[in-house]
């Protein structure tokens, strides 16, 4: 484990684009600085066994250089809206997508901030199969409809979060879910031309296959020369 220099050293860990509190995630990424080369799979197993149940370390790769955060260009989200019918959700989504700009407000530590929630949205749709399924499933018990949204949102400043998109839906189409939405981040990574997300660790995996040559950092050099990228999911 590498530590920062200075008066009070702290472990070198950087979290790239952490999901907001109260949101589930299957794709969180972090970088860990290490002082000596270590087997990524052993690191994965050790970290995984130290974390609380539900926090699973899925993969660890040796970093090949470059900032991980720069590769996380966008996120794919699933938002379950209990009490909202898929039809109603579809209508709101269409109206949202038809707008060039949708200004929303969010309360931040510095007060109320106003920004555009539309431009960052690469894609937004009601998941028809899942929606129907959920509706049928829910219908069997209590006839509560349920809509499932899927969206890909580009990481920008200020960050647009799924709840900002929901604020936008409320604003353009009065969509007001009766229950708190259940939000899950499904993936993060580089955005491809078709609006999909690629594996952000692909360059590191490539470097590993080529072997340690090319300065991938097998030597015991002090931090921050070595880094491991970990992907954590829930």
């Amino acid at each position, binding site marked *: *484990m590498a530590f920062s220099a200075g008066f*009070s050293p702290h472990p070198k860990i950087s979290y790239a684009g952490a999901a907001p*509190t*109260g949101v589930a995630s299957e794709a969180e990424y972090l970088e860990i600085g290490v002082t000596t080369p270590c087997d990524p799979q052993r690191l994965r197993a050790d970290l995984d066994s*130290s*974390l*609380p*149940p539900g926090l699973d370390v899925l993969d660890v790769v040796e970093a090949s250089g470059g900032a991980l955060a720069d590769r996380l260009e966008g996120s794919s989200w699933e938002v379950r809206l209990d009490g909202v019918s898929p039809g109603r959700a579809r209508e709101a989504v269409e109206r949202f997508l038809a707008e060039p700009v949708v200004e929303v407000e969010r309360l931040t530590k510095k007060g109320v901030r106003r920004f555009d929630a539309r431009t960052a949205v690469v894609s937004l749709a009601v998941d028809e199969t899942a929606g129907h399924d959920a509706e049928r499933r829910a219908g069997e018990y209590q006839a509560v409809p349920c809509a499932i949204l899927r969206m890909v949102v580009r990481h920008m400043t200020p960050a647009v979060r799924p709840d900002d998109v929901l604020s936008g839906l409320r604003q353009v189409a009065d969509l007001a879910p009766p229950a*708190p939405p259940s939000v899950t981040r499904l993936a993060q990574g580089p955005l491809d031309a078709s609006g999909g997300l690629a594996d952000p660790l692909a360059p590191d995996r490539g470097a590993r296959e080529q072997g340690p040559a090319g300065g991938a950092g097998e030597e015991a050099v002090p931090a921050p020369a070595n880094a491991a990228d970990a992907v954590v999911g829930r």
Partner: protein
Amino acid sequence: MSVESLFPRLEALLPKVQKPIQYVGGELNSTVKEWDDADVRWALMYPDAYEVGLPNQGVQILYEILNELDRTLAERTYAVWPDLEALMREHGVPQFTVDAHRPVRAFDVLGVSFSTELGYTNLLTALDLSGIPLRAADRGEDDPIVLAGGHAAFNPEPIAEFLDAAVLGDGEQIAIAITEVIREWKDEGRPGGRDELLMRLAESGGVYVPRFYDVEYHPDGRIKRVVPNREGVPWRVHKHTVMDLDEWPYPKKPLVPLAETVHERFSVEIFRGCTRGCRFCQAGMITRPVRERSITTIGDMVEAGVRESGFNEVGLLSLSSADHSEIGDIAKGLADRYEGTNTSLSLPSTRVDAFNITLANEFSRNGRRSGLTFAPEGGSERMRKVINKMVSEEDLIRTVSTAYGQGWRQVKLYFMCGLPTEEDEDVLAIADLARRVIQAGREVSGSRDIRCTVSIGGFVPKPHTPFQWAAQTDHETVDRRLKALRDTLRKDREYGRAIGMRYHDGKPSVIEGLLSRGDRRVAKVIRAVWEDGGRFDGWSEHFSFERWMSCAEKALADEPVDLDWYTLRERDENEVLPWDHLDAGLDREWLWQDWQDALGEGEVEDCRWTPCYDCGVCPTMGTEIQIGPTGRKLLPLTVV
């Protein structure tokens, strides 16, 4: 009968509360056992928020010891913040453990550790949220035994009405003994129900069951006597003392908190007990005699605890850590072992002694040399004689000069205000002392860039100490003296800017005084405060002096006593004190003599190095002082 996890219902509430992570559990080294594989189940509570409660040593030790037992499980529960409390009430979610999120009411025992009396209202919240009747007398066969421990349990009378039982002293062995009594009773098919179980616990003499004792009062409000109300219950209940701490090297696997907590380090108790004899110090009086852990066990515990937890700070804990007979070798040995690593060492609670600078230098090899803390406690030489804190002004100046001379830049000094016999000039003497500290520091360091912080707390007389008979100083006097001190320091052009002062107003100490030396009648006040919304009384943002005052006035209206009677009144030698039937081992006559010696400014030596002065503990409890040196050393660790 299995018990369902409350987590799905709790999880739905978590997005709406502050710091939800504190309720999630699953920390490294936490334990979840199958409910049906255990027949005795403990819920262990620290009655404050997770961030304060998680690091608590007592809870961590008992949690580990109980979970090591076969067919026994222990889980932890902490006080929930008012935001979650409101949501739990709204949605009918009961008090839960953070380990498996099981309802507290389903356990056999709810063991609550009270380090301070200010957790009493939080006990009531937890009971109420659990669905356990507040009054022990109203509980049924399905309710857990509500058991108090910790230092405040040496006078549990103010909460006696809410407790089924209390335990005095070290918890390791008695927790196991209680477990076995419960197991046997359950195996036999719970004969005689709850009453018989409590009777079996009380008969042993090691568990106090308040309902088996009646308190009789004089017409003027003083206690006439406390008397067992049934056959087989001992007149006095004794404290527990673990001998040979090397046999109890806990915690072995320290809990690693998920949320930020007040202490983020692995603490190793290097000894228990203290015989310095500071008269204000309840901890020093009730934890006698001194029992050291050996240097090698300490070394092993540090090594294993760091390996199991990943903490990068280790605290060597005790009431006066530099007093360990081999502290020099411990400090050097550990500093050698961890030199060049990210593991740092700290030594809380040290005395004013130049030797401590040597220790502090060892411990700062890996890191900063920023601040040192000493506790002269009393500002004037006279005051320090009254409290038996044997530190001369010359000692102090010599110590801080050494510190400043060796590169330390900041010295923090702890004092108390409102001590018995204290006059205004005793408190103002703190200013003189601080000025001399800075003056000496500037001389030896040749620098003006040095600071001294004076930190002052209000004194609260505690049970089982020589000051248990003393009148507490009223908060107006305390506040006036603190203000005079502050003004004196502010006016000082030469030194004032180098001296910082930290203090709290005297009001919370008055309530702490009521709860510390209260009797069973104080329960009415606690309940009234809780019903009026009192929570988290140890937190200044939640504590309401006005609420305590008005509730005390109303709740005690029909009694011949009031808040001042409990706090400001000096007791005489023959008055029956509410905790006289609870035996900390201290001879009452010795305590009274020590109180008289205090008034005469007479000092008492430490019995570790001078002959026994008959405080009574060792013969009463069948214990003895256990100290080194062992002559052993810490060897370098072999790196794996």
